[in-house]
Structures are given as C-alpha cells and as structure tokens.
C-alpha cells in the first residue's frame, strides 16, 4: 500500500508569490487533513476534508490559504500571496472514513521557505 505522498518536498519562493502544494492520500481514505509546523512551534491543524467536502477549516490562518480536494482524491493547498510567516513544513495526513478516531497516516511534508 502506497503511503501519503506530498509534492514538492521543498519549495522556496519570494514574498508575494503563489505556491501550490499537493497531497495524494492513501487510496480509499476518505479523510484528508492538512497540518503545518512553523519553526519553534508545534504541529497545528489547518483543515479536514471528508471526500471532496470541507468538514472543518477552523485552523486555516487567513484567506490567503485555499484548499481543494478534486473529486475526493488528491488535495491542493494554495498560498496566495505568500508571506514570510507562512514558512514552515506542511503535512498532509489521511485516514479511513467514518471510523471513530482511525489513525492518521502522515506524508513526509512540504518544506516551504518564503524569502
């Protein structure tokens, strides 16, 4: 079984530019999550998809962040325009659908650096 894959593994962009991160969950996993770790801080929840629907986006920092999940498969997280404080590691995770508290499987993350 292939794990959660994220692309790119590392991205360096200038302030004001746009970046799109992609996540491919484990096949058959209905739940998809985005988390972020800013340097020196703990990993924090951003949002949760169930299939193609946003179930909980209360962790999204502001409207410069836009997440989509086309057809309930892969997901993208776009940051537009990027700011310096957006630098960090963005993790995607997936889990099986509608199983109470099923374990999350994390990808290796995308390391975003905004200069």
């Amino acid at each position, binding site marked *: 079984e292939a794990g*959660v894959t994220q692309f790119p593994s590392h991205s360096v962009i200038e302030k004001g530019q746009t970046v799109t991160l992609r996540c491919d969950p484990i096949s058959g996993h*209905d*739940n998809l*999550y985005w*988390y972020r770790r800013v340097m020196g*801080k*703990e*990993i*924090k*929840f951003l949002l*949760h998809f*169930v299939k193609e629907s946003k*179930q*909980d986006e209360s*962790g999204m920092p502001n409207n410069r962040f836009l997440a989509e999940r086309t057809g309930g498969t892969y997901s993208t997280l776009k940051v537009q325009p990027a700011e310096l404080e957006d630098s960090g590691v963005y*993790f995607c*995770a997936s*889990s099986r*659908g*509608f*199983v*109470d*508290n*099923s*374990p*999350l*499987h*994390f*990808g*290796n*993350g995308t390391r975003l650096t905004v200069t």
Partner: protein
Amino acid sequence: QKEVEQDPGPLSVPEGAIVSLNCTYSNSAFQYFMWYRQYSRKGPELLMYTYSSGNKEDGRFTAQVDKSSKYISLFIRDSQPSDSATYLCAMSARLNYGNNRLAFGKGNQVVVIP
C-alpha cells in the same frame, strides 16, 4: 494556556537505558492519546495509541495516561540507536464521526548513544 505542553528539551541517553517522556494537557475533552515518532525529514509515524486512562504496552514501548492529572507518558525500555528520533505527543477529543483533529506537543528529540 497551550492545550498540550511538552518540554521540547533534547534528551541523550546511552544504549540500553530507559527513555521517559511526558506531556500535560489542559483540555478535559481529550480522550484519545497518541505518541508519534518522527525521523529527520520524514512525517510523523504513529507509535502508540491509548483511549482514556490506563497503560498500554507494545514491545519495548509503554504508554501511560492519567486523565485525573491530565498527564501522559511514554517509556522506551532497552533503548536502541534506531530509537533516535523526535517523539511527539498528540491527543484529540471525540468529535463528529470520522474527525480526528489532533493537538500536538512540540516534541522531544531523543538521541540514543551506542
């Protein structure tokens, strides 16, 4: 007050020693408690999972949860160099079906010296 507190100080131990890690939390709604292991440049990997209070043992790893004190622990016996990693505690409340929104601690970097 942070939801989850984990003293992020690094920890170096000789091979074979017992590693002891802990977290405290403030949210009484947390019922699911996890420990993740993260190797450098990799994503967190679920190590131990406990529901409510009690102990759970898996090989050399033991997880303890004391909900009355809002305190969780992870013990690694007979530590090996391959255990060198960052260990993160995480927890969640019972939310709507299928939602597993985790609150993480900052993590402890553990180095096991051969």
